[in-house]
């Protein structure tokens, strides 16, 4: 698989870096404070490919904390709230779209 560092980065609007926490797999977002948070509200927002590359490289280096980081699109509404930018990120934030058996 192509390393995220080698993929062409196309930033349309706002994006975040997201990954899964190493010890339990929970969805996390890269924060401006060089950490990981499970809350999308804490995610650092990047708006161009240089910013994205830097944030991503930092995330990739921190694989003790989280794995499989990549750039994900978000939408920021008028109130400044960060929302998932596509269906996949919505599912990652909210969970499966179906009822679980239990």
């Amino acid at each position, binding site marked *: *698989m192509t390393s995220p560092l080698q993929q062409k980065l196309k930033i349309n609007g706002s994006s975040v870096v997201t990954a*899964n926490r*190493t*010890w*339990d*797999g*929970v*969805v996390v977002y890269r924060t401006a404070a060089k950490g990981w948070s499970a809350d999308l509200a804490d995610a650092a927002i990047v708006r161009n490919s240089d910013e994205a590359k830097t944030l991503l490289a930092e995330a990739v280096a921190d*694989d*003790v904390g989280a*794995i*499989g980081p990549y750039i994900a699109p978000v939408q920021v509404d008028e109130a400044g709230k960060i929302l998932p930018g*596509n*269906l*996949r990120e919505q*599912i*990652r934030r909210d*969970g*499966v*779209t*179906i009822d*679980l*058996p*239990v």
Partner: protein
Amino acid sequence: MYAYDEIDRTLVNERVSEFRDQVQRRLSGELTEDEFKMLRLQNGVYLQLHAYMFRVAIPYGTLASNQLRQLAHVARKYDRGYGHFTTRQNIQFNWIKLSDLPDALADLAEVGIHAMQTSGNNMRNVTSDQWAGVAPGEIEDPRIWSELIRQHTTLHPEFSFLPRKFKIAITASDHDRAAIKVHDIGLRLIKNEKGETGFEVLVGGGLGRTPFIGKTIKHFVHGRDLLSYIEAILRVYNQYGRRDNIYKARIKILVHELGIEKFSREVEEEWQHIRNSSLQIDDEVIEDIRSRFIYPAYEKLPHMPDELRQAAADPDFEAWRKNSVAAHKNQGYSIVTISLKPIGAPPGDATAEQMDALADLADKYSFGEIRVGHEQNLALPHVAKRDLPALWKALDKLGLATPNVNLITDIIACPGLDYCSLANARSIPIAQELTRRFANHELANLIGRLHINISGCINACGHHHVGHIGILGVEKNGEEVYQITIGGRADESAALGNLIGPGVKFDEVADVVEDIVEAYLALRERPEELFVDTVKRLGVEPFKERVYATR
């Protein structure tokens, strides 16, 4: 039921201990993810959208009741109380934590269950017919050979870093329930004129982005040569399979690029060097493996017991019996398929409670044995006919008696975008809606045998290429769009489906399937003509017209 001995258990425990050390080195940072990823894959640990996913091996789809109970225990203790049975006879848990995995594996090892090589570029679960050992007309139990291959391919020092994953399937019946024609190696168990056991060997089948039907590389390989012949195929693949592009790395591509004649010459040349080596299987070894398969002490039972005769008055029981109960090779017994496709639910899931209850039912009615089929249903392989009414009542209470086996609502679906990080579109909600549209059992029976397969991306884990109706989810401009094929088959007449037209949106898929079914009902020559045969007879056009007339 194959009984693990001290030797098998030791290996599983050594593996657990190694993985515990690897997880510890990962969590401490001593191993990077790049170094660890292949190691965790070799123990069945994937990363999905929300969490890790843990794929546990169920060798050739056979489970003992205590093993099923332990799977329930893992679901309860380490996951969210349910598991998902897969198209390769394995089980997946979707919410597992990496830090819990060594303990989960240790718990499973207690009952001889492991997760070795359920992922990664190595040799995966050897799958077989879920009716192996009990199907009428079966030549001999293919699971003995599956077990020989399983042992040979487990932690094989030469073939643990192949160009890509490698899947083997084996059947011993005329009707192929193991889909051997779409496997990297497919084995059809046959006898030669002397009555000796051997195999027709097919190679290079597979679905995914470039589907191929397997080609026969050798018409008869004697049983004693099976392992050396497989070794020869693997050695050629290991050396010449592509390593530059993961989408061109399966053996099917190598076979396609070399051509089957050249490929088989390469294999033959290699095989001549090793056929008379220690890889040759002695009769004694085969007998030893065979002796460790425990077969039930069947009673002499009547063909039509009173209990069955009396229960025939109950139309619900009869509907289930006609649908889910199949003939057994021994008089007085049946093979019971347990549908994991209740109307409105995700296909192939079972809760921990259902698993525990099923383990108890297996003890009571099936000599403690359960099977897993690649259509994501389960089976109880040794049920006395007189027990069918009591079993049905119990299954019905558990929601495990939907009489839809092989019907349109018996859908095979991959986890799709709800779970899987490779997916482009969701598959489970599509399956759920389809079961609701065709929930009426009379309608489903009127339609007859019809397999719908749904994949959420072109990796085709739902086997959509070989679905009678195949549904492939793709992404277009941020939306989920579905391409629909018809006429595929996974069995001994394996064929790939044909596209009926442009993709349709999420909300339209169920309508389109209804249109296709309507077209079939109008066009079939007689009620017994199966959907897939009508498609073969008439081609795609009439269905395309019906579907796209108003779209």
